[in-house]
């Protein structure tokens, strides 16, 4: 019989790994929306009442509103690839928070290649033994055509005033 403290420590390590996997499923889900017009894998990662706050992409509350927003993505983008790095996941029982660095590449319907640089702050909930995203807030540092670089946006946000 493993004592309660040890069980909790193992549980926390397993939860962190499960949440990292959830985020990578989220990334793949995002890419399937743009690349294959397939919304279902992405919708599976959210709680029913999830908040998806994509800054310039709008704030969408609840799975129905998120689905409605996602259904419009293929009319804007023909390609996406989301790279998430630097995971900072903190677990507290059945709730957790995560912060990730994001670099994403897009092609829009006008054949512009775009680079998105930003940070995502997430909240997660464990529902029936499964971790789900209950909130995602994107902080965009830059989203600009590859040919323009990121200096305009970051200078405005972080440059000396």
């Amino acid at each position: 019989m493993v004592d309660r403290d040890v069980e909790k420590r193992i549980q926390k390590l397993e939860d962190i790994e499960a949440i990292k996997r959830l985020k990578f499923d989220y990334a793949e889900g995002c890419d399937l929306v743009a690349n294959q017009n397939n919304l279902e894998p992405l919708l599976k990662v959210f709680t029913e009442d999830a908040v998806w706050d994509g800054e310039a992409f709008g704030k969408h509350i609840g799975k129905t509103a998120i689905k409605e927003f996602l259904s419009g993505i293929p009319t804007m983008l023909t390609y996406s690839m989301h790279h998430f790095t630097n995971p900072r996941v903190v677990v507290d029982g059945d709730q957790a928070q995560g912060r990730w660095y994001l670099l994403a590449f897009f092609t829009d319907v006008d054949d512009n290649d775009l680079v998105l640089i930003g940070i995502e702050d997430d909240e997660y909930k464990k529902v029936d033994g499964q971790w789900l995203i209950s909130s995602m807030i994107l902080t965009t540092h830059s989203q600009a055509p590859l040919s323009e670089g990121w200096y305009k946006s970051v200078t405005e946000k972080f440059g000396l005033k």
Partner: protein
Amino acid sequence: MKMKYPNFINKILYLEDLRAIKNLKNDYALGCDEVFCRGCPEPLLGLFTPDAVWDVGRFGRFEGVGSIKECLEEIRESYVYSIHYFTNPRIDIQGYRAEGRWNLWALYTDVKEQDLILTGTEDDNYQKFQNKWFIKEMRLDVHFQAPLFKGWHGLIGESL
């Protein structure tokens, strides 16, 4: 418990230490970006041992937190933005000491509004003190720091 399952506890501790060191590196990335984006060195400085060595290759070698702080305070004179992406962690732990090797790609904007890409590796030494991991030594090996619109051919570092 510890008497009965010593190896089992050590395995858990190893995984916890691994997690803590990876988090330390992610905090290091956030700390670097606070310096470049906001001129705020405190979060980064809190991650080093007092006698830490911060060797950033062509950008200089700094011993001790005081010396590192002086360098960090000058960064905003040259840069307005950075984001440091760390990948490919290779971490070896021996008790209260550990070594880590990471791949880095970082994006910068300098005060002349020039966008730059840097890639390289970072070799770290970590030390656990009062149940918390700190960076004791970091050595950056720059492969290139290149303007976005010029590319990196012809700029690959001497170490390669």
